[in-house]
């Protein structure tokens, strides 16, 4: 990977894929590792407060929403069956989707990777002389850094979801899949809005006033924009309908007011039928925000019909691969594509709750991000993420599709640990590069090999117990070990004591117990 700095622009040449980026804060923090970003987040009291409040809010909402269902387990199972079936027939459903979109007058574009997707959108704007594009919230466009591509091409993208707009003004990336700005305080928003509008905002402005400022400011953009860009929550294959779920209503404007609507979807977002859509929609809104349904669900099929007074003249659907077909081919990771991006796994993840989204250094944070990011972008670039979990399993429980995230995290750890190559088709070339194994991992590997070998022999195990007892003795104070001076245990004892190895482990006490039985 080559990296040049050219007057504020960072050019990264990755394989044959070219990404142009201008002020991307994520890139700046990527040099730090996950552990130190996490440490910084944990020390940030304000962030801790915001995270606890937001997470509890989401978790509580989801629990209430599911509790009122007659049979939540059956609904989840149904949702999972739909996703499994769809992904197993992805080629057929995508073909059907494309055909249906075209039948209703829409255009379909296939993008193998981020660069292709960006080029498609940029070209559509350039051909029509469009200078301003409004966007409704979309993780797929975050994934491909579409805003940077548009800006580089002279098109100004304006995010219109309140949270997305706030982080766009702040020059940041979303810290949560559905609550992108949950780490921002009201005071920060006031400062950002004052700067964006060029008008003073009172320092005690209540939140409804701030929302009104956003409404007024962004409405001008909706009316002036030449292009509306949206993501896709679901795309119904049988009718070619893209479904966009919002609460604020920005989705209705971004897709309905500008003369051209471009929807960008990950290839896995297709659903076969309307029946399937209704099941997944029910799961999505309940899992994401605890709502029975969001305020607005737009089901869009092609451009404006001749008899309709408004709506776009053109509808374009960009279907994105960007590593998905590669994941699809790996049986043990295919499940990761079942994700419907509700964010429930983030909210219950005890690690996410402590470190927030930015610590992950990836577009998708939390447990699903720790799985998807290495799969999409290469485990070699994100070797730490699969370890960002205590494997407590709360994510799998909360997931409306019951995606087995802990198992996939372990599988990713295995690939990294055992140094097997992960197929990486991402940048047009077959990339069989062996994963770099960091030094710590190498030491770990030796230790685990030793452990795995030695513990097959009970004699060595018992000897180890004895040695352990003698080695720890100098450190024992008052029946406990308050501090171990050698890493990695020094990290452990920074936060908790270490118990002492018993002078007489259970296996030594057994003979006495056995005698007890005999007696």
């Amino acid at each position, binding site marked *: 990977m080559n990296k040049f700095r050219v007057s504020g622009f960072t050019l990264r040449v990755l394989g044959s894929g070219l990404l142009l980026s201008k002020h991307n804060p994520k890139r700046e923090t990527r040099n730090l590792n996950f*552990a130190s970003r996490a440490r910084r987040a944990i020390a940030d009291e304000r962030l801790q407060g915001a995270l606890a409040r937001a997470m509890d809010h989401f978790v509580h909402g989801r629990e209430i929403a599911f509790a009122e269902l007659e049979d939540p387990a059956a609904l989840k199972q149904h949702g999972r069956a739909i996703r499994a079936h769809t992904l197993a027939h992805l080629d057929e459903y995508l073909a059907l989707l494309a055909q249906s979109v075209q039948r209703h007058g829409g255009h379909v574009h296939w993008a193998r990777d981020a660069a292709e997707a960006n080029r498609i959108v940029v070209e559509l704007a350039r051909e029509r002389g469009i200078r301003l594009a409004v966007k409704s919230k979309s993780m797929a466009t975050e994934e491909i850094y579409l805003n940077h591509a548009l800006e580089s091409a002279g098109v100004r993208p304006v995010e219109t979801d309140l949270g997305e707009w706030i982080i766009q003004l702040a020059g940041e990336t979303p810290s949560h899949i559905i609550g992108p700005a949950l780490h921002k305080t009201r005071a920060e928003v006031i400062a950002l809005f004052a700067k964006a509008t060029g008008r003073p905002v009172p320092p005690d402005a209540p939140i409804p006033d701030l929302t009104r400022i956003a409404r007024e400011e962004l409405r001008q953009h909706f009316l002036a924009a030449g292009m509306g860009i949206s993501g896709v929550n679901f795309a119904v294959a049988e009718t070619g309908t893209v479904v966009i779920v919002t609460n604020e209503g920005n989705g209705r404007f971004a897709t309905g007011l500008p003369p051209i609507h471009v929807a960008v979807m990950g290839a896995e977002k297709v659903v076969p039928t309307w029946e399937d859509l209704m099941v997944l929609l029910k799961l999505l809104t309940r899992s994401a925000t605890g709502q029975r349904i969001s305020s607005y669900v737009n089901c869009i099929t092609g451009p404006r019909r001749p008899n309709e007074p408004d709506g776009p003249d053109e509808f374009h659907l960009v279907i994105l691969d960007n590593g998905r077909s590669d994941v699809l081919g790996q049986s043990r990771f295919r499940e990761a594509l079942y994700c419907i991006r509700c964010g429930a796994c983030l909210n219950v993840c005890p690690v996410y709750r402590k470190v927030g989204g930015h610590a992950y250094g990836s577009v998708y944070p939390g447990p699903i991000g720790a799985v998807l990011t290495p799969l999409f972008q290469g485990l070699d670039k994100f070797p730490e993420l699969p370890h960002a979990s205590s494997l407590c399993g709360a994510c799998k429980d909360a997931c409306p599709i019951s995606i087995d995230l802990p198992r996939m995290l372990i599988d990713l750890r295995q690939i990294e640990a055992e140094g097997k190559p992960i197929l990486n088709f991402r940048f047009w070339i077959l990339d069989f590069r062996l994963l770099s194994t960091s030094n710590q991992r190498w030491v770990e590997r030796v230790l685990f090999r030793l452990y795995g070998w030695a513990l097959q022999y009970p004699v060595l195990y018992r000897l180890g117990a004895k040695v352990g007892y003698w080695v720890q003795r100098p450190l024992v104070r008052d029946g406990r070990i308050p501090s171990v001076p050698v890493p990695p245990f020094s990290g452990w004892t920074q936060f*908790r004591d270490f118990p002492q190895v018993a002078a007489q482990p*259970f296996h030594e006490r057994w003979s006495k117990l056995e005698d007890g039985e005999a007696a």
Partner: protein
Amino acid sequence: MRVALFISCLADLFFPEVGEDVVKILRRVGLQVTFPRNQTCCGQPAFNSGFKRDARRLARHFIQVFEDAETIVTPSGSCATMVRLEYPHLFEDDPAWQARAQAVAARTYEFSEFLVRILKIEDVGARFLGHVTYHDACHANRGLGIREEPRRLLRHVRGLELVEMDRPDWCCGFGGSFSVRLPDISGAMLDEKLRRIKATGVNTVITTDAGCIMHMAGGLRQRGETVQVLHLARVLAHE
């Protein structure tokens, strides 16, 4: 009925009294307990860190040691999860070993699960004075669905009052090598757990996994708290 005890390496080395209490209780309810001497570790630490080859090696050892046992009981939810849920997967490419793994997996139980689900015993005649709270160990809870079993056993202990903490099923932050690899995050999770425990005002926390005990007890002691963390068996053995 004869029961083979798998003590688990953590309990063996750090909490041997848990093993003694398990034996005491199982005998009290009329069972014969054996302790296959060659047992070591189930291999979960290697498995969770991604070292499946090493985990497989220890799994084979475990299977050989316990294959002849009629029933295997362990006072560790995470070891029981490892044997029951993960062993069969570990040998996916090896049908002969997979069959052996499945056979052993089907006969392995966590201690409280064994008492309540298999023996249908909820009252083991214990007496323990005090207010306690119960922490759901992640693997026992989400892996094996053990939620009610320990609570039922506790409710039958004379003199004991169970006070539920807020979110008893949230991870204490141990996670095996996770707590060593990312001690700060693990420590922050522990903080939250201990806050919830303190809010109940109890003086005893009960759980079913040596890892959680080691983690929570270590944290409490370092913070100078007097709250004690006990394995379920320790309370149930109390007369």
